[in-house]
């Protein structure tokens, strides 16, 4: 995974390092690790943000960010969903009225978002388990994440057309 290593741009020149790197090796540290620690100025980076102030964790970071966001979303849906289902104990009319709002076409799109969040959280959760418990999971966590995205796309390609059939049936009132 050489592409993930920290690459120093060709134009990068650490300040105060005009002499040959090997000449400073008498300090006991290697010249490579010494120069790699120097923070370049803003103009020396390709980003508007100076390197070192923004964490760029690539796939590993985004897998975590998405896991957190989907987890919070599912949690709050769960709270609502337990309360609306509890109406089944109150009266059939009360339950049917509230559950009826889930059949609205706009809520039908909401169900696509819900399934998307649940599917991502589920697949990425299994990836986390593989990373934690398998011998090879940590080494291939990045490939595993792309596997998660692939599975998620396949599941959504199946679910979205099915859900649009349900939404259209609700709009037209057919079966």
């Amino acid at each position, binding site marked *: 995974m050489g592409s993930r290593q920290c690459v120093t741009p060709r134009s990068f020149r650490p300040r105060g390092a005009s002499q040959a790197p090997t000449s400073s090796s008498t300090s006991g540290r290697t010249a490579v690790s010494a120069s790699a620690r120097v923070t370049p100025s803003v103009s020396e980076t390709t980003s508007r943000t100076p390197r070192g102030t923004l964490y760029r964790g690539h796939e590993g970071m985004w897998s975590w960010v998405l896991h957190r966001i989907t987890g*919070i979303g599912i*949690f709050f849906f769960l709270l609502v969903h*337990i309360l609306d289902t509890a109406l089944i104990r109150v*009266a059939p009319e009360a*339950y049917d009225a509230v559950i009826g709002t*889930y059949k609205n076409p706009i809520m039908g799109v909401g*169900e696509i978002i819900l399934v998307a969040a649940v599917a991502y959280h589920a697949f990425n*959760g299994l990836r986390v388990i593989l990373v934690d418990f398998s011998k090879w999971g940590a080494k291939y966590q990045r490939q595993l994440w792309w596997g998660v995205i692939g599975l998620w796309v396949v599941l959504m390609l199946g679910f979205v057309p*099915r859900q649009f059939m*349900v939404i259209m049936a609700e709009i037209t009132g057919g079966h």
Partner: protein
Amino acid sequence: MTAESIADPRTPVAPRRKGVNLEKYGWMFMRGSGVLLVVLIFGHLIVNLVMGEGVRQIDFAFVAGKYATPFWQWWDVIMLWLALIHGTNGMRTIVNDYVTHNGTRRVLIWALWIVAALLILLGTLVVFTFDPCLGVTPDSSLWQMCRG
């Protein structure tokens, strides 16, 4: 801070807190419940949202049909317990990450577990005390049984 205040590198490791390591069991629970929840929730979604008429089929009679069998009662109750504990523990992790004030943090985490406990109690009672006769009409096959 002076150099003298830094502990000697050879200082023995501080003794671990005695008692059960709740964080370890929480960590294990998240993974164990996670695997079960994948099965339970995908099953729940397929039966309620994909098969038949999808979300349009869900009404009192649909749920009454499911809760007529202990299978779906237990399915829903196990899903309820695992999902709420899993979700609440996840929210606790997030609160621990972002809430720096100790008092606020403790209040939020207590609130999370109180809400979870109340909803688990409510949901479990609803499933096991469900009464199909609530919605019975004279043309229903349950009419005779419910009148008796």
